[in-house]
């Protein structure tokens, strides 16, 4: 299997879907002649032309709404948000229009559109550029939300998102784009709504998504050296949540740690805890632990920035807590 960078996998997915379907177009800031702020759209302008790879003005609400309108009449826009921080300006169009068109029209309209871009900490960019905002979108009926961690999942989920008949919100990661991983060749589609056991284990389940996945894998490997077998469940989709996969893993290991880059209050992890306590309470041998971003705004200083985010040592500590091996 060829190894690709996360950004290359996304690029492949875009190119393949645009090749397959002329209704698909990409719009966003710097996607065309600049080849993408993070080079996801590298080479696509030359290949597909300026009506299908569109350099937008810095008007997030404007071009998001314009794309929703195009989707209402049969096109399939992919809207690149340079980062999800900037998409806050477009939230009205995403939430009040895209997510509600099917409903308001009583089933007359559909809105097949993808909003995608990097979320999470940027790396020494301070608070306006470093936020994990997926919980906001996971809140809304009418949307689907995906947050792949690996290049293979990035490609497969983006292809599914473009083919989906609903608005799909895709969280990528500024610090994921250059990561490499194996990506299957040819038609590779990952279904929306399916979590993936990325590492099998028996003692504890670590549930996560997006960039935190890598810290969880690092923690799991270290734990293995101490004889603790951790299962890592990558949710991949945050709306709808894969309840079946969550409960199956909980029933297997009886102990759970949920790792989330964003803030704890009203986070996606809180909803996962809710599913577990209401449907698998008797399977638990310990209260569920959460490792989240600290309840503060992100700082620029390296030490403060690092301390704000989850990392492998914090995850290991949480695992030991649910195993009652604190200080062991």
């Amino acid at each position: 299997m060829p190894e690709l960078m996360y950004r290359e996998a996304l690029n492949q997915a875009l190119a393949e879907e645009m090749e397959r379907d002329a209704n698909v177009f990409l719009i966003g800031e710097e996607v065309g002649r600049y080849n993408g702020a993070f080079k996801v759209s590298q080479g696509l302008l030359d290949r597909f032309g300026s009506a299908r790879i569109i350099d937008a003005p810095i008007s997030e609400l404007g071009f998001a709404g314009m794309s929703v309108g195009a989707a209402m009449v049969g096109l399939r826009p992919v809207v690149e948000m340079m980062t999800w921080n900037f998409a806050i300006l477009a939230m009205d169009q995403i939430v009040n229009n895209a997510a509600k068109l099917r409903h308001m029209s009583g089933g007359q309209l559909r809105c097949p559109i993808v909003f995608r871009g990097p979320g999470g900490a940027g790396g020494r960019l301070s608070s306006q550029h470093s936020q994990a905002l997926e919980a906001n979108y996971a809140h809304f009926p009418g949307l689907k939300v995906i947050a792949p961690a690996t290049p293979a999942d990035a490609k497969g989920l983006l292809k599914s998102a473009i083919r989906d008949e609903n608005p799909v919100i895709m969280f990528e990661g500024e610090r994921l784009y250059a990561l490499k991983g194996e990506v299957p060749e040819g038609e590779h589609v990952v279904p929306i709504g399916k979590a993936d056991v990325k590492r099998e284990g028996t003692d504890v389940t670590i549930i996560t998504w997006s960039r935190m996945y890598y810290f969880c894998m690092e923690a799991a490997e270290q734990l293995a050296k101490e004889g603790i077998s951790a299962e890592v469940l990558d949710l991949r989709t945050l709306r709808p949540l894969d309840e079946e996969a969550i409960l199956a893993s909980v029933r297997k290991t009886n102990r759970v740690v949920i790792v989330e880059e964003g803030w704890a209050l009203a986070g996606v992890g809180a909803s996962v805890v809710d599913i577990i306590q209401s449907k698998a309470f008797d399977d638990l041998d310990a209260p569920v632990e959460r490792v989240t971003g600290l309840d503060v705004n992100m700082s620029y200083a390296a030490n403060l920035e690092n301390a704000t985010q989850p990392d492998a040592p914090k995850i290991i500590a949480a695992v030991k807590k649910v195993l009652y091996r604190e200080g062991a």
Partner: protein
Amino acid sequence: MASPYSKELLLTMYRKMYLIRRFEERAGQQYTLGKIAGFCHLYIGQEAVAVGPNEAIRPDDYMLSAYRDHGQPLARGSDAGMVMAELFGRGTGYSKGKGGSMHIFDIEHHFYGGYGIVGGQIPLAAGMAFASRYRNEDRVTVCYFGDAAANQGAFHETFNMASKWKLPVIYICENNRYGMGTAISRTSAVPEIYKRAAAYGMRGEPVDGMDCLKMYEAVKDAAAYCRAGKGPVLLEANTYRFRGHSMADPANYRTKQEVEEERKNDPIPKLRDYALKQKLAEDAQFDAIEEEVKAQVDAAVKFADESPEPSLDELWRDTIVAEGEEDVRPRERVLGMKVTNWPKYPSGQELKVTWDLEPREQAEQADKKAGLSR
């Protein structure tokens, strides 16, 4: 001078304006009876702004509006009973009672909805026009919004894109002088909305929104301009609502004299007088139309009142489109009618995109001029 308008056109316009007037009067009455709830924004006084433009465009052109949205679908030809049923929150409404007064959608008649967030539909219209250019169709999109929406970011962001990309969209600002209870002149540095088009290199004109024929002419001309690929147009229809912002608004921020004065400018008798003066129609014809419309609206109210509420299992429908799920065609669903003009879009395999939004040659010349090499 002989009138350039046919008798048929004038009578059609009269019928539609009278239908809107009558429909809205009855809607207001039903609101006070408790049959309609929530927000209910009446179109009384503004009828010419919906009817003139509709007669000037093709039935397959796209149209959308804000939340004062009963007038446009009625002008387009929507079923009055099903619009009323939507206001009543009944399952036989266009949106099964899920949208209500502010969200009338009738896709069969190419009416793409009423939107409740001020200015939120402005970018949507540009996107629909974008799709028309993308598919190389000569369709235009007509988008209504109120005067207060011109102070939203959506207005400015969209106008910039629509003009830059020469999108075939006609924006009609319905300037009824008040954003809810606040006079537009109190909140706007430039209260003449049409002037703002100039900032985006775009055509912008004021129109007498109390005159159906002037609205007709303005949109006919704008549509030809759009279809010729010359870009978007902003028309500021100066109009007046005879009633409050919504049924909940007693409109104490306007004087009685002001409203009385504006009522003299009523677009409905104005059109009738014109036709009579031109000897294109007689009183008896107008009286007959009025009787027919009254009966039509009575039947609409009866239909709505006798219709059931939506079934509770509707709660779980129309949030997410399931795989293979078809779109709902309201008149087929409610009246069992065969809907033949439901929009069809080319598949991604049939479609050939020929539009060059930013021609390569142009881009290369700009690079050369700047001393860049790519």
